[in-house]
């Protein structure tokens, strides 16, 4: 099913690890040169910046080419005709991506990624126009075919090309499905949560076979997405967009849902963070730990609106103190273990990527934070923006 061979992807992973290890002086340069020759892959990869730019230009080309086709060859086509051609474009884009990988051996190169993303977009737009244009019943259950097809096709591309954001796209398509089946909002939340939970069970069953191989990280990321999706679905304060104006005011949203359902989700948003964190810690899974921490913070932040309690200006201060306190305590506790290790965890930096990300974050986030903390300027000088500069962060530089 997968377009890349396992040995190619595993070789790429080995090379990435070697690069990291030599950067941290776990290997000598001489050793690296020898081992580098043993980890040559036929796949063609590129730098992250080039990948992004190639993605951008491929999307521009595909979008402009499709629009040009309509302008030149199809003057005022019917929606059905346009839909059929969009479906053809979807097939062409997908075929081009397959060819780009099988012939040019592109791997995370931007071009093949843009082609499959465009194919998903064309498929959904094409189905909508070809099958349902002019339909008097815009909420017909049969129209769920569009997001369903988007979800299935995204999942297929995720399996075939291994692009994690296509899995995320499939999760987003799933959100639209229950709206065609029921008008009950709690049922919609439940259906989405059941979809995600089913996916989670499937991923959990499959990923145990891929411990320590090249698919481990991919499954880890997908599991993290699913945990986050489940949490966001059951947290009614976050997932109900119509309630957002009440969020900061702390108005109770219980009236929008049946009380047992509402309070059931409140219990669940407190149960889920420890479960996710425990699973992440037990499996030493970075992405799942990160999602566990994120949902824990979200639970703390949304608890007051859930209970209908008013927010206080000092709430963020308390949260900040809690976060720094937890980080400080964990660091000290782990550092005091034998060799700075407790239960297999350490605070020591073991990868050069960690330092790189902190450096990028400092450049990008450093100036931005100044704008968020400073009070409004005095009325007498409207041009003045206290503490703020006009420049944004620079972004990262990176070697090829």
């Amino acid at each position, binding site marked *: 099913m997968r377009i890349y061979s396992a*040995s190619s992807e595993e070789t790429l992973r080995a090379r990435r690890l070697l690069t990291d290890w030599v950067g941290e002086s776990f*290997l000598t340069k001489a*050793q690296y040169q*020898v*081992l580098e020759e043993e980890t040559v892959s036929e796949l063609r990869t*590129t*730098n992250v*910046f*080039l990948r992004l730019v190639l993605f951008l*230009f491929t999307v521009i*080309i595909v979008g*402009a*080419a499709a629009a*040009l086709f309509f*302008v*030149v060859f199809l003057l005022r086509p019917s929606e059905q005709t346009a839909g059929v051609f969009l479906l053809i474009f979807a097939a062409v884009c997908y075929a081009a991506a397959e060819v780009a990988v099988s012939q040019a051996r592109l791997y995370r190169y931007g*071009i093949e990624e843009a082609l499959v993303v465009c194919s998903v977009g064309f498929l959904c737009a094409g189905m909508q126009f070809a099958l349902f244009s002019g339909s008097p019943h815009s909420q017909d259950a049969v129209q769920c075919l569009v997001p369903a097809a988007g979800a299935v096709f995204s999942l297929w591309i995720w399996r075939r090309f291994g692009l994690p954001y296509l899995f995320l796209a499939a999760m987003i398509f799933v959100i639209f499905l229950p709206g065609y089946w029921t008008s009950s909002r709690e049922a919609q939340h439940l259906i989405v949560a059941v979809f995600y939970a089913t996916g989670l069970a499937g991923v959990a069953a499959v990923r145990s*076979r*891929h411990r320590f*191989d090249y698919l481990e990280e991919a499954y880890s990321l997908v599991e993290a997405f699913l945990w986050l999706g489940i949490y966001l679905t059951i947290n009614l304060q976050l997932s109900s967009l119509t309630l957002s104006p009440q969020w900061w005011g702390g108005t109770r949203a219980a009236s929008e849902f049946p009380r047992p359902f509402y309070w059931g989700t409140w219990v669940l948003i407190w149960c889920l963070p420890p479960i996710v964190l425990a699973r992440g810690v037990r499996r030493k899974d970075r992405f799942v730990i990160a999602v566990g921490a994120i949902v824990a913070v979200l639970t703390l932040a949304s608890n007051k609106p859930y209970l209908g309690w008013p927010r206080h*200006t000092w709430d*963020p*201060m308390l*949260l*900040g103190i809690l976060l*720094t306190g937890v*980080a400080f305590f*964990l660091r000290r506790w782990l550092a005091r273990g034998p060799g700075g290790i407790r239960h*297999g*965890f350490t*605070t*020591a*930096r073991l990868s050069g990527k960690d330092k790189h990300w902190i*450096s990028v*974050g*400092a*450049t990008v986030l*450093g*100036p931005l*934070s*100044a704008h*968020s*903390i*400073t*009070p409004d300027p005095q009325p*007498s000088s409207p041009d*003045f923006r*206290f*503490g703020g*500069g*006009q*420049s*944004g962060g*620079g*972004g*990262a*530089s*990176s*070697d*090829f």
Partner: protein
Amino acid sequence: MPDDGHGVPGPENEGFMTILTRLEQWKEQSTISPEQHAHLTGLSRGEPFSLFLELNVLLYAGVLVLVVGLGWTVSTWSQQLGDVLVLTVLSTILAACFWYCFSRAPAWSPAETPAPSPIFDYVLYLGSLVWSLELGYIENRFHALSGQLDLYLLATAGLFFFLAYRFDNRFVLSLGLSSLAGWLGLTISHWTAHQDAAYRQYALLYCLLVGVGGAVLQRRGLKPHFFGTYLNIVANVLFWAVLSGVFDREGYGLWVLAMLIACGASLAWGLARRQFAFVAYAAVYGYVGVSSLFLRSVTDESAVLSYFVVSGVAMLVVLVQIGRRFGRPA
């Protein structure tokens, strides 16, 4: 080596070598020592598992949320709390942060210096943000800096640069660069009514100041690792300023020339130093600028779309060639 029961290759793992198999093979070939094998095998299995990045993110988020809450509380409750209490609390936090940093910092070195403790950088960042907050509060309540707000920004930028270089802190360096940009912007607003053009020129002045300053400091060996931060900020400000000139309806010729020079310089720097962010800046900003020139007088739909197809393909070919020639081999 402990086996947690997950290391057994599954059906899909057959037919290729995992990193663990490779390490075993490299040890048998004596390419790596048994000690290296044990260490690298442990790392591959997440033993030990490093929480370095996660704890740093948690500290950063904690400091930021703390200061946001502090600012929100101060701005909302200043009347009830009273100026004395607010200033006492802010000054105490500020003094504690700076005392911690100055008392724990090692002797200054022009080279890259590791932080003396894991929380050191974040304490300094907290102090710097609280400094901004306190000065903002003083200005809001007492208007003590009326008419001299630009000087305040300049002084704040100076303080942040000093702290960044003294304690080797990139967070604070970024704050300093941001404050310096704010000072220039504020100064211009006092000077001229034609602000768009003036802002553009002084954005260029900012780039010149920061770029030359960063280069001089790097050549003198003063925290040369900061140079990347300077260059990234300069490149983005420069391209925004030049592009805004290119978008003008009149008198844009010089800006087009400036854009081409900037793109060339960015491309050359990126390729020579293998810092591909600069190649990406040249490609994206350059494409936007050139496209605006070509398309400003074109109204025909198919001509516009044809332009995007042809120019996009051209860009793609050039970038793939660059990637092939300079890119990292797989």
